[in-house]
């Protein structure tokens, strides 16, 4: 095993066999130590939320990772590879140009479902609205609000905390499960609200002109929401949303309408938490 151990000889057998063994051990050890050191570093510089989203996005089923431009009809079939952050997507500007030429994007409300277009929508069912004072209001869209319903506990971020896009913005506990809601945009928390105020967070954006290219707007948001309602109908099997296509309406509180386990699974899927 070692040169000083009885039985060791400096011959080809010992050198080749033990050399190969020590090489393997060193590779395995170095790999694990490297992973440990890098993990420690990432935890220290508070990159945990970025990793959480990377993992969550990677684990989302393909049907939940459709590119926004597929929903919009600009491309037949495309999976998002950028964690729904169109700002880092090379193809996004091309698709935007193509979309500008189209005039058939729907506007307004959906099945009696309010979709105010004064705000921008995130794929995790939150919205962002630029206020006159330069701050950003963040809230849950109508579907998100009906999904979560009345939470038993709300864990909002602390004032002054900086949020990154797609990091956990807040979490809501209900029916024995905790549902996390993604931040639609980066910014520093100035105030916290709740379901009764109609908004959850007031953020100070990172710059004077916050980059919102990754958020859905106008007709494409309506089209996306229509697809989300279809998805919800497929997921919820217990008749909480039985007849949207026939003019029926989504129940006000899905948390009360669905069995607990199914509700948690549906929330996870719709709010992009696999």
């Amino acid at each position: 095993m070692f040169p000083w151990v009885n039985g060791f000889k400096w011959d080809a057998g010992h050198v080749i066999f033990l050399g190969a063994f020590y090489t393997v051990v060193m590779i395995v050890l170095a790999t694990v130590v490297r992973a440990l050191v890098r993990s420690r570093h990432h935890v220290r510089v508070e990159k945990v939320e970025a990793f959480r989203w990377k993992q969550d996005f990677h684990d989302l089923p393909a049907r939940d990772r459709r590119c926004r431009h597929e929903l919009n009809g600009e491309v037949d079939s495309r999976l998002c590879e950028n964690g729904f952050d169109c700002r880092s997507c090379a193809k996004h500007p091309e698709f935007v140009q193509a979309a500008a030429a189209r005039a058939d994007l729907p506007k307004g409300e959906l099945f009696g479902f309010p979709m105010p277009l004064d705000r921008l929508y995130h794929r995790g069912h939150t919205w962002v609205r630029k206020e006159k004072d330069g701050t950003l209001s963040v809230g849950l869209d109508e579907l998100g609000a009906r999904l979560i319903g009345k939470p038993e506990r709300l864990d909002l971020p602390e004032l002054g905390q900086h949020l990154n896009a797609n990091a956990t913005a807040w979490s809501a506990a209900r029916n024995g499960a905790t549902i996390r809601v993604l931040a639609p945009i980066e910014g520093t928390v100035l105030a916290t609200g709740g379901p009764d105020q109609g908004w959850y967070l007031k953020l100070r954006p990172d710059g004077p002109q916050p980059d919102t290219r990754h958020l859905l707007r106008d007709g494409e948001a309506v089209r996306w929401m229509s697809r989300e309602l279809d998805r919800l109908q497929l997921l919820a099997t217990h008749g909480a949303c039985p007849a949207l296509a026939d003019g029926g309406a989504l129940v006000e509180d899905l948390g009360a309408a669905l069995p607990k386990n199914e509700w948690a699974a549906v929330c996870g899927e719709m709010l992009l938490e696999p």
Partner: protein
Amino acid sequence: MDRSYIARGLERCTTRRFLMWLLPWTLLLAFGLYAAGLCLFKGLNQTNMDNRFAFGLWIFLDLTVIALGAGAFFTGFLVYILRMHELKAVINSAVVIGLVCYSGAVTVLMVDVGQPLRAWFTFWHPNVHSMLTEVTFCITCYLTVLAIEYLPLLLKNRRLRQVPSFLVFEFELHRVMYVLAGVGTFLSFFHQGSLGGLYGVLRGRPFAFREALGVWPSTFFLFVLSAAAVGPSFVLLTTWLVEKITGHQLVERTVMQKLGRLSGVLLIVYVLLKTIDTLVWMNRTVPGEGFSPQQFYGFEPFGVWILFAEIVVFGLLPAVVLLDARRRASQAWLLTAAGFACFGVALNRFVMTIQTLALPTLPFDRFLSYWPSWQEVGTFLAVVAYGVLVYSLSYRYLILFPQERDLKAR
């Protein structure tokens, strides 16, 4: 009760039902541990092995289990090195199977060798010219690699990933998985090979002895190839079994067929090489040692039929079925062929272990028979129970089949 530990969107039975499932396996494990304890504390007189019949049920089943567990290294090699992404659907399950198989085999070896407190002697004073030393080092290293590969699965548990350091460590481990897959392939190649090699170098046992290709006897390469061939088949069979027990579809049918095809390709190459090896052994090796091949097949029940069964019935036939796309598309054919392939490798390990030792080699030798004691059987049943328990817990609390949720939603 344990719902918060189960990944969202996965359907699992109630805690009570799950505990009821675990109960008989736990009892079997307890019985097996008692049997193993007897062997460890009272010695190998608890077994029916002796100085003449030194390899018995344990070594035969160890070799089989290690060959079947090869799905872990081979699937890892295909996914992370050859980038066959569709096999990601079964890689997690393959890792758990590998971990169970290897840890179980190492535990049984520990009972077989005895004196576990002196196990470190093997590493401290290695005989570098022994195939068994190579096996010991490689299996220990590979078991460590498998444990590290299992770690990301574990850390991905819904509750554990709430701990920030676990979440990030899992991510970082996942990024270096190709390194571990490469190391695992290297180690598996050598220990699977050395397990075969240790029979091939038995010059005093002409039934097993084979001529060398380079420094290794031909059995070195045949063991590697046969293990790689049946690994995917065993992953396929276990996946189907879990589907049947749980009532959920876990992977796309195309993944099953892909596993079957991989098995088929490797199996046909193995059958070809095994046939050549047998012909060389019959016409050159055995006569060179002063024997005739018929001598080895004259002791019932080990007639020529066993050679035919090993190469044709459980080798060539499943290989042909698995290579035929039309037959592969039928689940009955696919599963039967995969089962035959796995049985074939088990038969090969049986022949190499039991038949080799049972046959007389010296004029005053007689044909020996051996039947395992209940302690030997009990010890191995403990490994089976342990495997079922680890796999069941992993299936319930970890994501073993990433396609499961998607398939359920369809």
